């Protein structure tokens, strides 16, 4: 999980490990196409 790398809405890379350096991370999962 910690290693996960994803693409944001602008095509930029987002890494969980980076986000965790700023503090806690709240991950919100949803079904999509909404």
């Amino acid at each position: 999980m910690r290693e996960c790398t994803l693409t944001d809405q602008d095509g930029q890379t987002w890494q969980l490990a980076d986000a965790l350096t700023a503090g806690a991370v709240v991950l919100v999962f949803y079904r999509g196409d909404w």
Partner: protein
Amino acid sequence: MARDYRDYRRRGATIAAIVIDSPAQNAAMVEKLALPFPILADPGGEQAIKSAGVWNDTGKMAKPAIVVLAPDGREVYRYVGVDFMDRPGDDEVLAALDGLGLPPVDTPLHPMTHRASSPGPRAMTLSDLGVYLRGVRFAMGAMAARARDDWHRAEAERTQKMAERYLAAQGATLRVVTDRGERGTGDPR
């Protein structure tokens, strides 16, 4: 959550949404809801959704869920809903963050360049969303009044309250978006 983002940042947290949709669809959603946090694409669920244990194998999509990770990666909160109207209140999530006692996040908001956006085929407009939520609220009120046992009544009432909360957020978003329109360009967050 988007309209209360400062409550999260004040408690030392950032938010990221994760979904199977494409970045272009997510760009449309960020724009529509004036989201101050990113939506991340995980089309097959392999990057994050499955490893977080929130994959809905029947629907081939994420289950509605909220997972909070402490800075060391430890999971400190999890809520997995049975359907899209089954969501925890902000209070619960904020309480979990309070428990961590972190300093506020003061880094800039996630940068957004507003690249090409293209809503999915079933995506509702922001004003349609208001009509939809009023329908949910009305229907749940009717179901609560008809319920023959306490459990169903409580579930209908809980869902009705959620529709009420979402409707308030939709109204607040509509104001943000209108304001953004009147000011021309710029960051609405």
